[in-house]
C-alpha cells in the first residue's frame, strides 16, 4: 500500500491515491467491501484519467496473473493483470495470436476488456470483447462469472465500462491461429485524404488488417496525404523460412523528459515530411514482424516522455459512413488552426457490439496525438466535439482527458442502460475514477 501520484499515458491531470496490490480475488473482494472511491489500474496505457481516482484507492491488477494452457481450439484463461506482451510471449511459439491488439502490447487483459480496445482488424473481427468467452468480476455486491450468455447485461456493461462496474480478476479468451510470426503488408502512399478514404472504402474488406496514417499538417491539395498499410498473417507457404518467435523487449528508451515544446508545429512538420517521403509509393506483400506491424511504438520504452512535462492528449472519434465528411472537416480544422498534430491514424470500423458504452460504431475513426501547449488547442478540440456530436459520432473514453460531461449523454445515448447495471452491482457508488467524476459516469 503506497500513496502515489498517478496519471495516464498522456501525463496530464495527475492525482494522488492509495495504491493497493491485491494478490488474489479474496483480497479484491475485501477491498471493495470496505472502501469507497475505488478503481482498477493495469499498465496505465489509457491516455487520460480513467485509471486514477483522486483521494481514493487504485487497485493495481498486476498481481492478478496466471496464464492457463492454450486449448487445442485456442481458448486460454488469463489473469486480469496479464499483459498482451506476456500472453504473446507464450502463445506465438505455439501458433496463437491475440485476436485483437491495440497499438501497444503493454496493456493488461482487464484493461483491454474495460476499455473494449480495438485494433487494425476491427472492420473484420470487431473489438476485444467479441473474443472474450467469459470473465470473472468482483463487484461491491458479489463476485460473478459473466459471459454473453450468463448475465449478459453485466458482461456487456463492463465491455467499455472503464472499470466502473467492478474489478475484473480473470477472463477466458479465444485466440487466433497463426502459422508464422510475419504479416504480409501492402503499403501505398496517397497524395490526399479523398484518395485514401476511397481506397479504404472499396478494398479494406479484402484485408484483415488495415490502417492509414494521415498527415494533419499539410494544407491545400495535399491536405491529409496518407500512407495506407494493409496486411494479413503470412502463411507458412508464403515464406522461405517460417518462424514463430515471441516479440523482443525494447532496447531503446527515453531516459528523461524532453523539454515541453520540443514537439511543436515546426518539428512535427519536419517529422511528418520525412516520414511521408520515406514510405514507399507502393509496395506489396512485404513481410513484417508482428511487433513492427502491430506495435511499432513498443520499440521505444517511455516514448510519452518525448512530449515533455506538459504531456499530450489523444483525440479519437468515430462517425458513421454517412458522415465521412466529418473526418475531412476535422483534419481541415486542425491543419488550419496551427496546432501541432503528429500523424493521425485513420481506420474503418465494422459492426458495433452490444456494449452500451463500447466505443466503435460502423464507419470511420480518426485518432490524433496532440502536445499540450498551444493556446488554441482546448478550443479547437471543443469545436471538434461539436462537429462529432452533430454527426452523431462519439469520443473514445480510453483516449479522452478533456471532454466535458454535457456532451457525453448525447454521444452515448445508451448511458442510462449502463448506469442501471452499475447501480445494480454497485448501489452505493463505490467504484469511481477521475474520468467518471469528470464525465459524470457515476450515476448519481
Amino acid at each position: 500500500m503506497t500513496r502515489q501520484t498517478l496519471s495516464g499515458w498522456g501525463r496530464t491531470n495527475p492525482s494522488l491515491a492509495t495504491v493497493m496490490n491485491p494478490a488474489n480475488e479474496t483480497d479484491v473482494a475485501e477491498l471493495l467491501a470496505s472502501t469507497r472511491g475505488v478503481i482498477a489500474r493495469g499498465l496505465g496505457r489509457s491516455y487520460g484519467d480513467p485509471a486514477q481516482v483522486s483521494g481514493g484507492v487504485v487497485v493495481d491488477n498486476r498481481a492478478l496473473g496466471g496464464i492457463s494452457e492454450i486449448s487445442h481450439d485456442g481458448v486460454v484463461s488469463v489473469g486480469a493483470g496479464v499483459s498482451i506482451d506476456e500472453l504473446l510471449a507464450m502463445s506465438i511459439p505455439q501458433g496463437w495470436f491475440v485476436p485483437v491488439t491495440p497499438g501497444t502490447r503493454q496493456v493488461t487483459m482487464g484493461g483491454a476488456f474495460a476499455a473494449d480496445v480495438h485494433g487494425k482488424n476491427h472492420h473484420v473481427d470487431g473489438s476485444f470483447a467479441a473474443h472474450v468467452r467469459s470473465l470473472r468480476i468482483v463487484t461491491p455486491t458479489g463476485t460473478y462469472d459473466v459471459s454473453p450468455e450468463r448475465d449478459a447485461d453485466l458482461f456487456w456493461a463492463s465491455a467499455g465500462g472503464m472499470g466502473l462496474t467492478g474489478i475484473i480478476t480473470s477472463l477466458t479468451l479465444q485466440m487466433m491461429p497463426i502459422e508464422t510470426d510475419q504479416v504480409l503488408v501492402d503499403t501505398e502512399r496517397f497524395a490526399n485524404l479523398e484518395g485514401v478514404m476511397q481506397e479504404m472504402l472499396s478494398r479494406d474488406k479484402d484485408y484483415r488488417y488495415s490502417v492509414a496514417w494521415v498527415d494533419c499538417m499539410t494544407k491545400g491539395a495535399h491536405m491529409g496525404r496518407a500512407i495506407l498499410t494493409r496486411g494479413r498473417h503470412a502463411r507458412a507457404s508464403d515464406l522461405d523460412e517460417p518462424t514463430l518467435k515471441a516479440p523482443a523487449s525494447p532496447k531503446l528508451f527515453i531516459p528523461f523528459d524532453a523539454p515541453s515544446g520540443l514537439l511543436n508545429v515546426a518539428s512535427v512538420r519536419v517529422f511528418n515530411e520525412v516520414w511521408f517521403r520515406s514510405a514507399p509509393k507502393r509496395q506489396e506483400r512485404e513481410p513484417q514482424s508482428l511487433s513492427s506491424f502491430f506495435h511499432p511504438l513498443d520499440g521505444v520504452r517511455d516514448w510519452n516522455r518525448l512530449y515533455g512535462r506538459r504531456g499530450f492528449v489523444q483525440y479519437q472519434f468515430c462517425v458513421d459512413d454517412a458522415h465521412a465528411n466529418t473526418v475531412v472537416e476535422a483534419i481541415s480544422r486542425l491543419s488550419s488552426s496551427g496546432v501541432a498534430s503528429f500523424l493521425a491514424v485513420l481506420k474503418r470500423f465494422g459492426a458495433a457490439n452490444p456494449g452500451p458504452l463500447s466505443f466503435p460504431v460502423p464507419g470511420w475513426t480518426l485518432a490524433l496525438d496532440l502536445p499540450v501547449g498551444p493556446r488554441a488547442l482546448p478550443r479547437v478540440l471543443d469545436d471538434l466535439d461539436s462537429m462529432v456530436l452533430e454527426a452523431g459520432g462519439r469520443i473514445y473514453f480510453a483516449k479522452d482527458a478533456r471532454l466535458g460531461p454535457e456532451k457525453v449523454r448525447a454521444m452515448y445515448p445508451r448511458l442510462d442502460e449502463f448506469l442501471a447495471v452499475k447501480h445494480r452491482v454497485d448501489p452505493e457508488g463505490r467504484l469511481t475514477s477521475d474520468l467518471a467524476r469528470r464525465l459524470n459516469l457515476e450515476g448519481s
Partner: protein
Amino acid sequence: MENAFGQPQNVVVLGGSSDIARAITKKLCSARTHTVVLAGRNQELLDAAANEAREYGATKTDTVLFDAQDSGNAARTVEESFDKVGGHVDLVIIAVGLLGEQLDIENSAEEAARMVNVNFTWPAAALAEIRHRLISQGGGRILVISSVAAIRIRRSMYLYGGAKAGLDRMCIGLADSLEGTGVTLQILRPGVVRSKMTAGSSQKEIPFTTGVNEVAENVMRGLSSGELVIWSPPILRYVFFVLRHLPAKLWKFIADR
C-alpha cells in the same frame, strides 16, 4: 474534475466579487466550470458575480459571506465554501486583497494592520485550511493572486506591496511543500490592472497596464501550462527581472516619479 488543459469543473473563489476574480470566473465558466462558490464581503456584489457565472455557463452557483479583516473566520469560510461545492474541488482562487490609498493610511497603526490582515494574514490562514482539504481529497489546484508590487516595493504603496510580498514568498515555499501530494499552487502576478480596486488611485497609468480580461486570458494559459508563477502580461517577467536588480536610487526615481 479538472481536465488535461487545467480546466476545472468545480471552483471556489475567495474574494469572488473582485474584478479580476470575476473575469477569471467568466473565462472558466465558458470553458468547463459548472459549479462555482463565490465568497466575499458584499452579498449584492457576490450575487451579481454569481449571475454572471451562470450567464457564462455555470449550472450551480452559491455564495459565502466573510470579512477578510478577521483571519479567525478563514477556516470556517473555506469549510463552508467546500461544503457548498459538495464534491471534488478542482480549483481554489484566492483573490482577497485591499489596495487602499497609502498616503491616507500610513500613519495609522490600525490601517497598517488592516492592510496586512487582508492581504496576508487572512489568505495565509485560509491557505492552511485549503492545503489540508485538497491534500485529503487527493488533488486540486490553488491560484493565489499576488502582484508585481510584491517584487520590488514602491515607496508609494509599501503597505500593500509588503503584505503581498509576504504572501507571495510564503506561497513559493507552500508550493514546494505540496510536491508529491497531487495538489499544486500557482501564483498570479499581475501588473497594474484597470479595475474598481485601482479606479480611485491617484497614480497615473503606468506602462503594461492591462484590462481584467487580459489577466484572465493569461490565467487560462498558466493553468494549462502549470508554471509556478503566472505573470500578466507575460513580458513583466522580464521587466521585473531588470527592475528588481536596479540600484536603489534609480528604482526610486523610476518608481515614484
